[in-house]
C-alpha cells in the first residue's frame, strides 16, 4: 500500500526563554520586594543622574579661565583647573622645561609593565628589558646614573613627583619585595625553630602596624640608624619602608599558595633525589606562585594605592602635587574638588585595569587546570 504523504499542520512556535520581557520579569520584577527595589532605584536614578550630567558635563567649563569658572560656581564643574594645572599635578615640582623626561620615563615604565602582563612576552629577554628600562628610567629622571652624568641637567630626587613617582615606588617596591617575600614565606614554613620565629615575628610585626608609622620610622629614624655622616636619600628611605611593608603582605600570600601544594609533590621530589632548594625551585614554587598570582595582583593594587601616603612624609605624589599646585593660588583654590576628582579618575583607571587583568589571569589559571 502506498503511503500518502500529506503536510502536517505547522505547530505553534516553542515558548521563547530569552526574550527581553522574560529577562525583565526574572531579574527586575521577580517578586514584590524586587519590584519595589527596582522602582525606587529607578526613581532615585532619574532624580540624581540629570543633576550629575548637568553639573559634570553640560554646564561645565573646560577652558582654563578662572573668571568663567567663578561665574558658574555651584552650577557646573570647573574642569579648567585641570587644564590649567595638569602639568603640576602629574609631574609635581619637576622643572617645567624638562618635563618631557618624566613623560618619557613614565611611558617606558608603563609600556614595560603592560608588556610583562602579556603571555606572549614571557621569555628570558623580558628580564633584560626590565633592567634596561629601569636604568633608562632613573637616568632620564635624575639626569645621572651611578654618578655619571648623562648630558641632561641633574634633577635631585626631592623634586620628583606626581605620576612617575607613584609608578616608580609601587612597581620597584613590589619587584624588590618579591624575592624577600618568597624567602620569608619559605622560612615561615620551615621546621628550623630559629628561622621560623624570626620570619613569624617579622611578618606579624609589620602587618600589625599602619603603613604611616613605617613611613615615619623610615623618614625620621633611618638616618639615625646609619653611620654618622651618611644621609640616605629621601626616596631610598621611603622605598625601603614600603618594600619591607609589602614584603610582609606578599609573604603571607605566597605562604597561602605553598600550603595548597599537596604532600605528594614533596615526596615525589624526594624520591627523585632532589634536595631542599632544588625541590623548591623546580617543583614547588612554580606551582605555588601560579596559584597566587591573583592574590599578588591584589597586593600590587593595594601597594599602588598606598603610595598615596608618601604625601605625609612630603614626597609629592599625585594628591600632594595637587595640594602644592593649589596652595598659594587663591584664584584656583575654590575648585579643589574638581582637582580631586581628576586624580580619583587617574587612580581608578589604573586600579580598575589591574583588577580586570587579575580576573583574566584567574580565568587563565582555571582553564589551564581544567581537565
Amino acid at each position, binding site marked *: 500500500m502506498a503511503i500518502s504523504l500529506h503536510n502536517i499542520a505547522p505547530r505553534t512556535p516553542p515558548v521563547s526563554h530569552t526574550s527581553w520581557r522574560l529577562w525583565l520579569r526574572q531579574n527586575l520584577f521577580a517578586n514584590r520586594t524586587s519590584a519595589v527595589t527596582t522602582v525606587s532605584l529607578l526613581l532615585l536614578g532619574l532624580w540624581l543622574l540629570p543633576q550629575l550630567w548637568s553639573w559634570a558635563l553640560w554646564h561645565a567649563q573646560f577652558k582654563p579661565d578662572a573668571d568663567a569658572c567663578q561665574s558658574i560656581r555651584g552650577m557646573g564643574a570647573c574642569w579648567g583647573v585641570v587644564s590649567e594645572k595638569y602639568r*603640576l599635578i602629574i609631574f609635581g*615640582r619637576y*622643572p*617645567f622645561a624638562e618635563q618631557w623626561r618624566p613623560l618619557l620615563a613614565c611611558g617606558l615604565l608603563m609600556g614595560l609593565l603592560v608588556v610583562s602582563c602579556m603571555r606572549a612576552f614571557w621569555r628570558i629577554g623580558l628580564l633584560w628589558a626590565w633592567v634596561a628600562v629601569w636604568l633608562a628610567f632613573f637616568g632620564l629622571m635624575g639626569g645621572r646614573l651611578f654618578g655619571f652624568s648623562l648630558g641632561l641637567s641633574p634633577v*635631585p630626587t*626631592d*623634586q620628583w613627583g606626581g605620576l612617575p613617582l607613584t609608578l616608580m615606588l609601587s612597581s620597584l617596591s613590589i619587584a624588590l619585595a618579591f624575592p624577600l617575600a618568597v624567602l620569608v614565606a619559605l622560612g615561615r614554613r620551615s621546621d628550623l625553630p630559629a628561622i621560623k620565629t624570626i620570619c613569624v615575628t617579622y611578618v606579624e610585626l609589620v602587618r600589625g602596624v599602619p603603613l604611616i608609622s613605617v613611613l615615619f620610622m623610615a*623618614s*625620621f629614624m633611618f*638616618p*639615625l640608624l646609619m*653611620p*654618622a*655622616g*651618611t*644621609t640616605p636619600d629621601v626616596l631610598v628611605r621611603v622605598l625601603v619602608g614600603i618594600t619591607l611593608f609589602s614584603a610582609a603582605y606578599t609573604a603571607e600570600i605566597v605562604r597561602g599558595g605553598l600550603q595548597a601544594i599537596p604532600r605528594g609533590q614533596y615526596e615525589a621530589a624526594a624520591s627523585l633525589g632532589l634536595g631542599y632548594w632544588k625541590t623548591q625551585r623546580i617543583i614547588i614554587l612554580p606551582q605555588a606562585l601560579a596559584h597566587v598570582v591573583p592574590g599578588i595582583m591584589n597586593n600590587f593594587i593595594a601597594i599602588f594605592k598606598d603610595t598615596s601616603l608618601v604625601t*605625609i*612624609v*612630603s614626597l609629592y605624589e599625585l594628591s600632594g602635587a595637587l*595640594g*602644592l599646585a593649589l*596652595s*598659594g593660588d*587663591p584664584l584656583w*583654590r575654590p575648585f*579643589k574638588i574638581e582637582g580631586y576628582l581628576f586624580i580619583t579618575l587617574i587612580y581608578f583607571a589604573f586600579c580598575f585595569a589591574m583588577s580586570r587583568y587579575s580576573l583574566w589571569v584567574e580565568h587563565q589559571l582555571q582553564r589551564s587546570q581544567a581537565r
Partner: protein
Amino acid sequence: MKNSPIKAALGGAAAIGFTLLFSASAWAGKTLDTIKQRDQMVCGVNTGLAGFGAADSQGKWTGLDVDVCRAVAAAVLGSGDKVRYVPLSAPQRFTALQSGEIDMLSRNTTFTLTRDASLGLHQTAVTFYDGQGFMVPVKGGIKSAKQLKNATVCVQSGTTTEKNLTDFSKANNLAIKPVVFEKLEAANAAYFAGRCKAYTTDASGLASIRSKEAKDPKEHAILPELISKEPLGPLVRRGDDEWFAIVKWVIYGLVEAEEYGITAANIEKLKAESTDPVVMRLLGKSDDTGKLLGLDREWLVRAITTSGNYGEIFERNVGEKTPLALKRGPNAQWAKGGLQYAPPIR
C-alpha cells in the same frame, strides 16, 4: 669541632660581627670641611611662606630666610648660588638638621629653651623679632583676641604656636578649641574654607599668608594682640662650634653693615675709599677677622654683596613695598629704637 674550614668561617663571621659592633662611628669631619668639599651648602627652608622662604613655579627660591642662607654660602663658598634648598614642614625640620641632611635650618624657627637645650641644636642669631597673633575674617566682627571664647582656631602641628595658644586660652579663660593640621597648606585651606573662626601663627606669617592665599586680603583682619615673643632665626647642630660661630657672625655682620651704612650698592666704593676704622675692619681691609672664623678676609664683603645688608634684606622681602607691608618695628636698629643690636666685629 673537627673541620677547620667551618671553624674558620664561623670565627670569621663572629669577628666581622664584633668589629661592626664596636666600630666607633666617628663624626665624619666638621660641617665647614664637608661644605667646602661638596662645594655646596644645604639649607633647610620653609615649604612655601611668602616673604620668608618660597619657590616660584620655576623653582627659584626667595625670602628673608633664603637671603640669609645665600649670605652664609657666599661668605663660605664664594657665591650665593651654591646652595641647595630643602623645603621642610614643621614636624620634619629638627630631625632633618639633627640627622645631617641639612647644614643649617633657616625656616622662621622660634628660639626656645627646649630647642636650644634638648634637641642637640644651637640657636644662632635672631633675624626677625616677631610675636604670635590671630587672623580672623572681618565678617565675624571680632576685634580683639579676648573675644575668641569657645572659638575654633586652625593651627599647624609641631610649632610653638600650639603651646602659646593653650597658654593664652588658659590665662584668659577662653576654652579655645584648636584644630591641628600636619601641613601648613591644610591649615590654610581649612581656615579659608571657613572651618575655623581664627587662624594663628607668627604675625609675619599671618601677613604673608593673607597677602598670598586670601582671595581678597581686605576681608581678613589681623588682630592687634601679640600673645607671645617669637624671636626667629637660623639653627645649626651642636658639636660644631666653628660652624656655629660662622653662621652667627655672618648675621651679626649683616646687621652691623646696616648700622654703618654699607649697602650692596656702595660696598665697592667704600672698600676702595673709606677711612672709617669700623668700616675698614668689616670689609677686611685692616684686620683679618675671617681668619679667626676659618674663612678668608673677604667673607663679609661677599655676604653683603650677595644679599645686601640686613635692612636691604628686610625691605626686599617683607618691607613696606612688598605685599606683606611689615614695618621695621622691633626689627629696627637699636639706635633707632629697635632690637637689632650686633656685637662689635673685632
